[in-house]
């Protein structure tokens, strides 16, 4: 018995010894994970932070959510059948609770801000950076912070502003409401720092440089009514070709050539990689990625050409993958004089050709007319004008003239077949179904500087100078031989004309909503020119609703109310 008890005690003792040694095993071992304190404290690691700070631009540029928030709800676009954010296109029941695009952009802009603020607080502690490296990377972060805050403040107004980042693991559940002026104060501070400290050039196409910061600064000056500064900065970038090397391409059409994306007119572009694995599509390795990835712009504006005449015209790579999301308003089409202005034919596709030879009814409006088509024959034609019915019926192909798409009031009667923006089409995609395009998104191109200079000079009371800048663009845009017809005089210049010119030059380039807002023309022009949205738009809609997820999550709700007018 005594012996047994000893044995039991032995067991217990052995057990407790094992127990104590096991206790050490309760320290977590995490060889896969990365944390900020380990990663961002060396030059090599900090570089990854700076790179990451750029990635958030991809959530807006080239993405459906970004297009819907920057081009839709304006005078120039309305919704096609496939639009998934009609509330942004038409302001119909636009709320923070029903529009996922708002939350996606909000969260990612602020994630970028948080990362940048973390980086700016940390960068002085990186031991193996030289001072030059430090000021360069710091300047990049300052630029990006200004860039992201501009999107935030213009989209939502005076919302949360901070230059600090809480430590990882510390939970921040409050937000502040900061006046718009304070945002711009910070934006200009950051841009000043960036302009001063950024290198003039870079071998990393897509990384920001001092001229890029200047160009964005010009846009900001214009936005804030600092017209003299805007004019001076824009003019500087236009005129000093020797320094900056920015030149307008001779032909507007060449801007959209996939083989010519990195060209002298581009000041800054979001560089989507031709190796799609470098882009942002959600994947097992990048679970918080974008559901569609890369540039989606090539799909969104296309009519469903493959439903016009399926046996003869099928979906293919050159014609693109038609998502049927957006269609031009009649007003946008009316802005173009297609006889003089090459930008109409360079921006829009109006003819679709047979890509599958066969015999059949080619004219949907005259099904008895059976004829034989070979590859290259016209199958569908869309026109910005009203055509004679007998003429249209005489054709072997189907015509959608303006009357077959819009009624007299300009409301689309058919949202499937229409003149389609082709600027972003990408025939280098590997297959017709490929949703990812490697097309770079032009954030700032030199043409915008001409328009900034024109608008600033007009605001400064110099319409002739403004006309000069506009005429440069219009001359470049003119169909050869029609240059004279494209010229305008200072007397013709007014704010609406400048906005018209911006639409002709920049439609689809994710600037329209900001342009209308800056010029205080949003309500006016939408009401006049976009009948779909006119019935819904209200005065308060110069800011978007704050995403409901933000409103729900903040704990200081009384200090962080929804934007006025939204619920």
């Amino acid at each position: 018995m005594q012996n047994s008890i000893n044995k039991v005690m032995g067991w217990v003792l052995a057990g407790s010894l094992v127990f104590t040694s096991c206790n050490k095993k309760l320290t977590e071992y995490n060889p896969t994970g990365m944390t900020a304190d380990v990663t961002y404290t060396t030059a090599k690691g900090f570089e990854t932070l700076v790179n990451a700070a750029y990635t958030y631009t991809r959530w807006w540029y080239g993405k459906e959510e970004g297009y819907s928030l920057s081009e839709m709800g304006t005078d120039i676009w309305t919704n096609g059948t496939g639009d998934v954010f009609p509330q942004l296109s038409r302001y119909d029941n636009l709320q923070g609770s029903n529009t996922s695009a708002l939350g996606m952009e909000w969260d990612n802009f602020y994630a970028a801000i948080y990362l940048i603020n973390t980086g700016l607080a940390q960068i002085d502690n990186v031991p193996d950076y030289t001072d030059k490296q430090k000021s360069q990377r710091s300047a990049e972060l300052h630029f990006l912070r200004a860039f992201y805050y501009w999107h935030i403040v213009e989209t939502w107004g005076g919302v949360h502003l901070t230059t600090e980042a809480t430590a990882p693991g510390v939970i921040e559940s409050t937000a502040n409401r900061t006046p718009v002026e304070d945002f711009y104060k910070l934006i200009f501070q950051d841009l000043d720092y960036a302009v001063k400290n950024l290198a003039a050039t870079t071998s990393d196409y897509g990384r920001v440089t001092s001229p890029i910061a200047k160009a964005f600064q010009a846009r900001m000056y214009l936005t804030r009514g600092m017209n003299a500064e805007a004019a001076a900065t824009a003019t500087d970038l236009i005129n000093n070709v020797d320094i900056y090397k920015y030149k307008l391409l001779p032909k507007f059409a060449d801007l959209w050539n996939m083989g010519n994306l990195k060209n002298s007119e581009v000041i800054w572009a979001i560089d989507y990689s031709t190796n799609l694995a470098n882009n942002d599509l959600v994947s097992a390795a990048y679970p918080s990625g974008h559901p569609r990835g890369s540039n989606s712009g090539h799909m969104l504006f296309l009519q469903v050409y493959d439903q016009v005449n399926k046996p003869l015209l099928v979906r293919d790579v050159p014609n693109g993958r038609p998502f049927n999301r957006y269609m031009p308003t009649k007003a946008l089409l009316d802005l173009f004089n297609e006889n003089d202005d090459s930008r109409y034919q360079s921006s829009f596709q109006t003819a679709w050709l047979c890509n599958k030879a066969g015999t059949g009814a080619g004219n949907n409006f005259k099904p008895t007319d059976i004829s034989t088509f070979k590859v290259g024959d016209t199958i569908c034609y869309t026109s910005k004008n009203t055509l004679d019915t007998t003429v249209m019926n005489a054709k072997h192909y189907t015509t959608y003239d303006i009357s077959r798409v819009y009624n007299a009031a300009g409301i689309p009667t058919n949202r499937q077949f229409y003149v389609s923006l082709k600027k972003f089409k990408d025939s280098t995609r590997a297959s017709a179904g490929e949703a990812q395009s490697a097309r770079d998104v032009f954030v700032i191109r030199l043409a915008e500087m001409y328009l900034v200079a024109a608008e600033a000079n007009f605001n400064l009371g110099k319409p002739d100078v403004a006309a000069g800048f506009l005429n440069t663009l219009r001359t470049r845009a003119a169909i050869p031989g029609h240059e004279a017809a494209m010229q305008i005089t200072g007397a013709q210049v007014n704010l609406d004309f400048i906005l018209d010119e911006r639409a002709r030059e920049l439609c689809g380039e994710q600037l329209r909503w900001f342009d209308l807002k800056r010029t205080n023309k949003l309500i006016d022009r939408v009401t006049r020119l976009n009948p779909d949205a006119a019935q819904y738009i209200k005065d308060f809609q110069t800011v978007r609703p704050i995403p409901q997820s933000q409103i729900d999550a903040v704990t200081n709700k009384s200090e962080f109310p929804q934007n006025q007018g939204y619920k």
Partner: protein
Amino acid sequence: MKSFRTGIKSPLLSNALLVMKITTFLLLVFVLQVSAWGFGQRLNLRYKNAEIAGILVNIEKQTNYRFLYNNQLSAIRQKVTINLENVDIRQALDNLFSQTILTYKFMANGLIVINENAAPQATEKKVTGKITDPNGTPLSGVTVTIKGTSKATTTNEQGVFTITAEDNDVLVFTYVGFDPQEIKVGDNTQINLSLTSAASSLENIVVIGYGTLKKRDLTGSVVSLKGDEVKKIAAGNVMESVQGKVAGVDITRTSGGAGSSVNVTVRGNRSILAQNTPLFIVDGIQYPNFQDINPNDIQSMEVLKDASSTAIYGSRGANGVIIITTKRGAAGKVRVGVNTYYGVNKKTGYPVPMNGPQYAELKRQGARTAGTWNSSADDAKLFGADLQAVQDGVSTYYPGLLLKDGSQQDYGVNVASGSEKTKVFFSFDYFKEKGLLNNDYSGRYTLRLNIDQTVIGTFKVGLQSQLTYYNENRRTDNVLTVANKIIPYYVPYAADGSLVRQPGGANQINPLMEELPGAYINNTNTTRILSSAYAEWKPFSSLTLRSTLGITNGSSRNGLFLGENTITRFTATGSLAKVTNATQADLIWENIITWNKKFGDHALDVTAVTSYISNKVDSSYAQGTGQIIPGQGWKALLNNPLNLGIWSNYIGSNLLSGAFRVNYGYKGKYLLTVTGRADGSSVLLKENRWSFFPSAAVAWRIIDEDFMKDQNVFSDLKLRASYGVAGNAAVKPYSTTTGLILIPYSFNDISMLAYGFDPQNGNRNLKWELTGTQNIGLDFGLFKNRITASVDYYDSRTRDLLLLRPLPGSSGHTRVVENVGKTRNNGIEVSLRTVNVQTKHLTWSSAVTYTRNKERITDLVNGINDVAGGLFIGSPVKSFYDFKKEGIWQTPDSALAKSFGYKPGDIRVADLSGDKCQPDDKLDATYDRTVVGSAVPNYTLGFSNDVSYRNFDLNVYVFARVGQTFVSDYANKFEPNAIENGANVNYWTPENPTNDYPRPNANISRASMPFATTLGYKDGSFVKIRNITLGYTLPKTISQKFHVNNLRWYVSAKNYFTFAKQKDYDPEGEGSFDRPLTKLLVTGLNIEF
């Protein structure tokens, strides 16, 4: 004077007579008068082959001696040959008895008492008997052991056994599924016995955490199922077989895909972020992959529901614990079982989309609303090149081309054998299920070896091990979604019989393209090992020390090849090949000390446990696209030129625990259980690392009270009450740290490393979810247990709920896991078993389970609903929040419709409230949405009937799940612009003012159609005849000719009849039309040698 001899056969009577005999003998000693006697008398005995009894009679004749002996003494009948002259009585008897076990003793007055020798070999006798079940059916293979010895035998085919034993021996009869029974041999040579089925018996041993207990001594809420019950329904996994059989356990199967598992919850959903799956313990080792277990290997399954039973599992116990115990070998005859079945899988209800003409009409009506179609004259314009097909009424039912009959088959052999010291059980099983889709199959091989070896008397070692290997190809490609939306007047085949890639030249890939050989491969090979070894030392009868080392190891390889014509790759470029490898290794070391002792009326049973669990998962994948030779799949990733990607990951955690349990019983009537467990986990930071989980339970066996002795209604009555706290170890490893994520990026096409913050912030303060459960239960049996029942009421409240708390995006993070929020589940569970008829040839018994659980969230972050997360205080976890559809706006109401911004033909929803808490003539998401339903049922009911008549047995099992809502993919599939095909529904037109579906409109998509989601909510209540099995057991007289002990043949119809409000759909599938559920018609054989 006569000598006393008794010759009564009945053992009971003979015992009584023995007492009488002795009393009489004592009287005789004093009263009998013997005239003359003396040793001097001489005898001559000359006999050849004569019975001793006869010789004794002759001696009595020759002398004055009188013999006293028991006539039943077998030796007295022994025949001897003897040749003696002139011997005295002693010499005569010595000689006579020398060849026997008989002894003699002289008493007063010339009386000689004859007895058998006490020496064992001298008193052994042959005992035979027949063992039957309560119905009188012979049980073959019953182990008969002499208690305390290694001597054992088993019953033969007629249930008959023979064993040599002594009067003082105790025979122990054991048989799987029946109560062990002990009988003292005494005078008997014939012992006939009817064993009682274990399920209803109080003496039945129930497995609980780290130990066993007699059912009568249970204080917690534990349901025990025997192996026979587990395998009654042919199913790939054990949990599917017991669906509806355990009150409080909700088991649903939501996919009919091959090898798909089931969802199991015990007493509702407590957790929101975390899983609500119970903890599975297989032979003492935690093992979540219950689908690996061969149902024929199961000895018993115990479900631990209340906190007093589960708290011994501490941080892992809150979701209930399911303990599976596998079969062991037994001493005696080798028993071989063969089980096999084959069945055909067919889809249960599956709704049919619109056919060609119906779809064409939808398209017309949509165009009509948009103003581009007025009459058939506009058909040409509308349908263009499709006009001919429309006019011809062409229609293809695409899902029908994909859905085929599947099959299910199982082949298993098991062997149980052993000697007294070594016991072995081993088995092999092959299960294969073919799903309804081409190339959808799951094959499972299971091997098991269980050994118990006694080394020396008090020291025992053993091993239980299971190896499972799967070869599976799962179709998880939503092919039926495409088949249901492809436009039906497009034909899938070209004139030459080949497949058209895009039927009608439209944008849908032909779903039949995936059926081509090699187009879609999703092959997984998984091997999992569950192995544990134990050593057990019992230094004295009251103390047991046991140490168990368990290893569960799993490795899997998933090879995926998606050809360029598959649904997924159709919207990308080229084929995709990917291989994913994962290995998982758990190491579990547990030491258990058990000590029990009785002190008079007090019984004490103490268990102490130390436990260490380590868990590691390594995984990696590699992938590429655009393979040159498709057949190479993932086996030659280097031949994929594009999008090469690699990834690897490690996750590990450790858990260290100490636990104890004290069971105390007073007079066996008043029972108390106290348990506690301390868990320390690596996934929590130091401050919260250790947690303690206490519980206590009491039970009162009212039936054992004196005042219950005189009644004969109750045969059992016990009241139980318990309270305890258990955790849900649901914090994922590394949740306390804020991680970085790698974001793909490049400058100038040169890839760059970019690490940004994970959108999910880390939380350093995380701790376990805690669930406190109180449970009150009543167990009773009526009319000699013809009716037995358990009724439990419980109330479990979960606090410190792990919630994915949304953070304001402005903070830089969008979410964090936090211990906030509370849930509550309370309800009532009833289990009832009745024996309705019990006659010689016919028995009918029933089992009813009823569960009613009220689940709701009681607190969330800041005490407010999380609309985005779909969480609502007062509603169950899985609730649906939306507008309430009232119908369709009708023409007479157009003015009212317009005031809301709608027009006739639009969906009409209720104006529930407004900013002043009353209807405000506006419809908005803030005030007019409400919880329209929940996936949680109001109650579930199981009703099982077993009838046996002579050689036939019948099981009919009905299962009902009532009150839940599901979202029907089909009902939601209404495309107002007819861009795709959809459900064949009754939609609004000016001529058809229905309230079912809105008006088609070519200019709006489903996404932009107001209130489109309100169409999908459906009442998911159903009653299902889960199982009808008819079996026939071949009479032994016939089967024995083939040396077969038992041969049963059965046919079974599983899930064949479903009664539900939703037509053509099995609502158990929760609305998916990608994975239709199946019904199974199966036939099988059980053979025992």
